[in-house]
């Protein structure tokens, strides 16, 4: 088994096919989308492939060390930040192909007009554990 991160972006990914902001959908379309995401996670729990899923608020801050004895510097949120992560799902699957297949299904979540959003999701492999047997 190998773990993959399916990463969803508020901003920073290429534009989806069905690119309409959520507040311009109908309330029923919003509900259908939320339901699809819940069902997807529940199904992966059922197949034993779900590890974790989290959603992030878009409001974030950049922080850095500012030297001995000083409080950290904070900055942001930046309206112009190119990359803004919306959330992730961690899956544990047999193959890379399976990870891509699942990301494709997640990307088909319905959006405006009840049609799939076709949004771009990033699939990132976790570094594996070092194997015990090395030869």
């Amino acid at each position: 088994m190998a773990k993959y991160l399916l990463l969803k972006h508020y901003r920073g990914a290429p534009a989806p096919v069905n690119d309409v902001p959520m507040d311009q959908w109908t309330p029923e379309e919003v509900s259908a989308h939320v339901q699809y995401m819940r069902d997807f996670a529940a199904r992966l729990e059922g197949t034993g492939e779900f590890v974790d899923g989290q959603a992030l608020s878009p409001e974030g801050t950049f922080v850095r060390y500012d030297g001995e004895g000083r409080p950290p510097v904070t900055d942001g949120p930046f309206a112009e930040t190119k990359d803004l992560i919306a959330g992730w799902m961690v899956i544990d699957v047999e193959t890379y192909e399976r990870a891509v297949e699942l990301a494709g299904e997640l990307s088909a979540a319905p959006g405006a007009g009840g049609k799939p959003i076709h949004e771009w999701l990033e699939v990132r492999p976790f570094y594996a554990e070092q194997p015990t047997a090395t030869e």
Partner: protein
Amino acid sequence: MNESLLRELVPAVIGVLVRRGADFAAAEDAVQDALVEAVRGWPDDAPRDPKGWLVTVAWRKFLDAVRADTSRRRREELVEAEPLPNPVEAVDDTLQLYFLCAHPSLTPASAVALTLRAVGGLTTRQIAQAYLVPEATMAQRISRAKRTVSGVRFDQPGDVATVLRVLYLVFNEGYSGDVDLSAEAIRLTRQLAAKTNHEEVAGLLALMLLHHARRPARTGPDGRLVPLAEQDRSLWNSQLISEGVEILQTALARDRLGEFQAQAAIAALHADAQTAEETDWVQIVEWYDELVRLTDSPVARLNRAVAVGEADGPRAGLAALAKLDPTLPRHAAVAAYLHERDGDPVTAARLYVQAARSAPNLPERDHLTRQAARLNAQLRS
């Protein structure tokens, strides 16, 4: 043997060990070990005297731990002090445990974890699952908490107010994993109410019961949030409501108002309305005035602005809102609601989008997004 009955025994068993000379941290560890053994073994083979069993096993665990300890002198002292086998005294130390676990030197998260383990009798694993952290993390949080209170004398009286804050935190956590923290908070508050005669304990218990009564109506079958005005009131648990109201009335009759009684009074007024339209908003505003006077809390002021909007119209609500800090959590959501009632869907839709962006949780975010979507759809048509 059901598990909640088992858990009810935990604080008393810790008390027995402490009175026999174990310090609190070691006693609590030993009882936790015994508890884990009981959870594993009792379903097949429950003892006739559960408390006696727990005391015996926990005391053995405690002695094992002491023997494993490097201090030879301490071991000898304790083995000498080992009591005669009539172990179960009638004294109840549960109340002292509440105080200790909510000690002001603890951070809220530590106090919550320690209370759930030592008073609630939950295992570290269950607490970790409920708070979505790894078990090792929760174990560390608990052992650090115990080190923090290690110098506190077990028989010192504590402050009920700190205990109530901890229980309220537990209640608000809701439920995830296999433990229903709201139900657990109610159980612990009931137990506390039975051991104290304090009107705010009663107030908090009433508040919890009244909120818990509405829980079946608060989320739709698809997990979506259903706002109070749209809830199917036939789903409210009328038994919990009448119990909550009765407890509240008895507390209020003592004429020593506190913040939990005031909040419970507001919840009771909502529970009393057969339909959302019948809600007595004028009285609710009066109770919010009391709550603001008692707590000076910005959250209470924000909720008061909503109530004013219902009692005196949206303009009055917006005027009350204008006096508050716009960075308050949920400020934009309240503003959106009042602007819509005031007949300004354009501003309301914009504010709902803004509110969704800063929502503290997903159900609220989805709800606010749906509100914006609803208004935008209206504006398009």
